[in-house]
């Protein structure tokens, strides 16, 4: 079961690293944004970046176990949103987030990449991404600028 705590300027969601709990949590976050002054496309972009970071936690930090604790805080700030994400899974390899590189698409159809797009999308759409390992927890923070486009 996901736990949601919504306030005037922030929302906090606690859930497990199961793909359907991730979906429900994204839905709770999008429902909260829907009551505020954002365009559907802006909400979609936020949902995309959150889905990418959460899928990464579920697949790599918790190695698809499905029962790892994830805590996500989203704050509404002047120029957009600020995200703080915590999990208790494996650390990022090398102690840092992967460099998201654009995929090489100049290949035969059979050799097209089916993955590796996640960190590239995060890098393109998120700002001030900071990763820290604190004790047995992974902390990821970033911002997204909304509204000014």
């Amino acid at each position, binding site marked *: 079961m996901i736990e949601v705590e919504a306030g005037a300027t922030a929302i906090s969601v606690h859930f497990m690293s199961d*793909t359907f709990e991730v979906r429900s949590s994204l839905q709770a976050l999008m429902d909260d944004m829907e009551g505020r002054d954002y365009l559907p496309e802006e909400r979609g972009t936020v949902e*995309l970046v959150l889905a990418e970071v959460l899928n990464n936690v579920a697949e790599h930090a918790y190695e698809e176990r499905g029962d790892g604790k994830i805590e996500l805080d989203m704050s509404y700030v002047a120029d957009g949103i600020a995200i703080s994400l915590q999990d208790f899974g494996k650390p990022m390899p090398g102690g840092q987030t992967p460099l998201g590189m654009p*995929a090489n*698409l100049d290949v035969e159809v059979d050799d097209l990449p089916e993955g590796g797009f996640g960190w590239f*999308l995060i890098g*393109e759409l998120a700002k001030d991404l900071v990763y820290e390992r604190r004790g047995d927890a992974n902390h990821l923070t970033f911002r997204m600028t909304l509204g000014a486009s």
Partner: protein
Amino acid sequence: MELSSSDVADTRVVKVIDTRIDAAVAIQFKDAMRAETEGGPERVVLDLSEVSFIDSSGLGAVVAAKKLLNGSHVLELAGLTPVVDKVFKLTRMDSVFAIHADVNAAVPALAS
């Protein structure tokens, strides 16, 4: 993962009924595409007009479907909604697929 398909003028139009192609359904998507296209026309147009959200897992599944069909079918896309369009453009996958504004543009016989 719910898909529906119909044949129009030598084209199999496969419509995604679900509103999301994400990590939760990515694996099912490839199998569902195989089932919907097997033995059908060579040209396949995937109608994504009901899909409001796709993530990188979902994008990978659409690419996997293109690779799976390659040789017997050609996979084209139609009806990309804003977030789906953004994901294809940012990853430059829009250069890999023929993309149509909607199914009527992809299959003119449908519009008439």
